């Protein structure tokens, strides 16, 4: 295998510390989601969570061991089938059927993986592709159980019977939370494995199987474990999809979807859990969004193809890897500080505009918050987009911007003004955010354009003002925090 500069070492951090961000982020998403989204989007995000779990298993096999499994989505179908069958046949509680389905899928995963133990990469991809295609044909013919008699449990005539959701999560909102918590559990488990013994074994196997054997690592056992574990989580996700609608569609697990899921997992990034969630969003949420705006979903496919090509050519780090590159050096103190300033500015401006009678509190609060958020992420997004056209272009653009800014800064210095060496970046950012967010906000929040623009630029200016004013007093606090907590994104690749 080619020596590959992107080949990952084991990321630092104790297991618990590495699992915490996943649990916290997804916990927040579970709590806040229902307040922010409409019913349609909530169901979409439930599916996204299920797909992200499958993508997690794809990423586990590809990112940790370099093994391509195109059958993971088919395994989800297997898990879903068993789950439905058990509920219809034996009226088992949802969770027990779910776990049983996951166990059966784990056995299937192991069966798919067994030949892989001695197989070189490409052959494994072909084998799993054939398995996925065969599963599709079988599912097409047998169908998913829906309350009929016999082994297949297929109803011949009459209404399809739907399964009940678990009693703790019968509404759409509750089920969304339920699935997101399962996702947190699944991804957390994967991260835990990566941070402990299996993760170290996988990393060594990835580097060199001979070295792993020499070091006393059982290559066979850990490869088989990866497949079993992956099958388990994929099967779990299949059961969760079945629970969402109470049934599964015969055309729901085509081989094309397996392939697409693999492709988008690579695009999203296989080396950390953020990429996996990106993959879920790309598979399901982006087409839904495009559909909302009347854009043909097939163009999304074309774009995905392009994105896959680009991320493979660029060394397989994917969207998440690029983002991590951008935010790698962010310190904990800055995050806490940012949260505090954001809160102060948004609430303050919200109150101010309400008092002045220019806008409602909620509207002003959100516009200000969005402006601050955009200020943070727009440079990152631009960086990402440039990254699609190559590392060289990315670097060159940055150099060019820096050179121009420096030139400008020198001019300002001669005039006796305070120089800011990233002048152009800031100005462009402010202009773009001001005009764009104001344009969007004036439509959404029913605020005049000029008011929105004033609000946005005020919040950005307030942030700079606050930072300059508070800087001397905060310095020692910052240093103390940074000593206590390391850079939170440093372990993300």
């Amino acid at each position: 295998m080619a020596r590959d500069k992107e080949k990952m070492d084991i990321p630092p951090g104790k297991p618990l510390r590495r699992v915490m961000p996943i649990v916290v982020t997804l916990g927040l998403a579970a709590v806040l989601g229902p307040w922010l989204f409409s019913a349609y989007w909530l169901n979409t995000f439930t599916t996204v969570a299920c797909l992200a779990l499958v993508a997690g298993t794809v990423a586990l096999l590809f990112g940790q061991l370099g093994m391509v499994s195109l059958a993971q989505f088919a395994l989800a179908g297997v898990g879903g089938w068993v789950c439905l069958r058990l509920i219809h046949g034996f009226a088992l509680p949802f969770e027990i059927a779910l776990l049983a389905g996951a166990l059966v899928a784990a056995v299937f995963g192991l069966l798919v993986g067994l030949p892989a133990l001695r197989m070189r990469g490409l052959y494994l991809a072909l084998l799993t592709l054939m398995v996925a295609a065969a599963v599709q044909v079988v599912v097409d013919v047998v169908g998913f159980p829906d309350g009929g008699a016999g082994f297949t449990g297929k109803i011949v005539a009459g209404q399809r019977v739907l399964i009940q959701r678990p009693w703790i999560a019968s509404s759409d909102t509750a089920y969304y939370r339920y699935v997101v918590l399962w996702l947190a559990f699944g991804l957390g488990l994967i991260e835990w494995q990566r941070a402990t013994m299996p993760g170290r074994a996988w990393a060594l196997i990835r580097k060199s199987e001979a070295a792993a054997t020499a070091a006393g690592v059982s290559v066979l056992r850990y490869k088989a474990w990866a497949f079993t574990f992956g099958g388990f989580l994929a099967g779990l996700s299949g059961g969760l999809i079945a629970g969402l609608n109470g049934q599964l569609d015969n055309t729901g697990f085509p081989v094309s979807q397996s392939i697409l899921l693999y492709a988008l997992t690579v695009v999203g990034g296989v080396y950390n859990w953020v990429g996996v969630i990106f993959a879920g969003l790309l598979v399901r949420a982006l087409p839904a969004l495009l559909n909302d705006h009347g854009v043909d979903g097939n163009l999304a496919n074309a774009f995905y193809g392009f994105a896959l090509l680009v991320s493979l050519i660029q060394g397989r780090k994917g969207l998440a890897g690029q983002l991590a590159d951008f935010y790698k050096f962010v310190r904990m103190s800055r995050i806490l500080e940012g949260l505090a300033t954001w809160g102060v500015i948004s609430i303050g401006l919200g109150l101010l505009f309400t008092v002045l009678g220019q806008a409602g509190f909620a509207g002003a609060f959100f516009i200000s918050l969005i402006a601050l958020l955009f200020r943070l992420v727009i440079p990152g997004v631009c960086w990402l987009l440039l990254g699609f056209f190559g590392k060289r272009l990315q670097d060159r653009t940055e150099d060019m911007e820096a050179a121009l800014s420096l030139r400008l800064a020198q001019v300002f210095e001669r005039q006796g003004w305070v120089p800011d060496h990233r002048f152009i970046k800031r100005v462009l950012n402010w202009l773009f955010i001001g005009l764009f967010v104001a344009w969007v906000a004036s439509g959404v929040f029913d605020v005049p354009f000029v008011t929105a623009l004033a609000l946005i630029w005020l919040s950005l200016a307030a942030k700079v003002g606050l930072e300059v004013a508070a800087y001397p007093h905060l310095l020692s606090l910052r240093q103390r925090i940074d000593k206590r907590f390391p850079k939170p994104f440093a372990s993300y690749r």
Partner: protein
Amino acid sequence: MDQFLPFLVVGVSVGAVYALSGVGLVVLYRASGVVNFSYGALGGLAAMLCWQIIDLEYADWLGWVVGIGAATLLSWAYGRFIAPSLTHQDKVVRAMATLGFALLIMGISQWYWGDEPRRLVLPTDSGGLEFDGRRLISYTRLLALGLAASLTLAMLWLLAKTPLGLRMRALQSNRVLSALLGVRVKRVDTWAWVIAGVFAGITGLFMGNMVRLNPIVLTFLVIPAMAAAVVGRLMSLPATVLGGLLIGVTETLTALVPEISRYGSAAAFLVAILAILWQQRQGIGLSRDNSHLD
């Protein structure tokens, strides 16, 4: 026998098209080490373009030429401009990159042509060989059989007897050494991509005629074709042809047994899985090793 024969004939002719696709895949793999997932998408594009031109009431032959030409051109472009930037990657990565290309082509053609039912009619459809007063095989299927046989022979001859074939075989056994000995790697690779493009175009036209004229369906027909190639270990052309025929015949013959008739389309994958497992037991994995990249 009486009801058996028509199925056998249909099976053999469908198998011939699989075999033809398989040969296209194998030739490219042998020369450049790339498993081409975009093969079906290129064929689909060729079929759709051909249909479009015939639908605009230009001459039929123009449709065929443009269809096959477009597939060849795109394949050449990929081989010339995109594939070289991936040569130092793992084989899996190179295969998956063609998957990206496939999605790109498929997405655009599906967006442009959509899902409406269409038929690609070839002039050879109307006539056929008769037997006992019944049509036994249409000329299109006969043509597919003939092309599969002759193109496979041509490829065998190309690989065995021509200077280009010699260089392809050299690349197959060791790319770095061949480059040291003066083989123009990129040029030979590009030729392999061109050949693969022509094959993809031809098989695309046949598939569009025999199976269904839809970009997505045609794109994923690369999977049974790959099954045929796997039977030949992505290496042996005769074994690939045999695999293709075996798959085609099994697929259609299952239609005669009511219990399993609906599982027919799984035949290709079962044959391939069994072939992989059998080859594994025999200790003959994929032909080309790329240990020299270590």
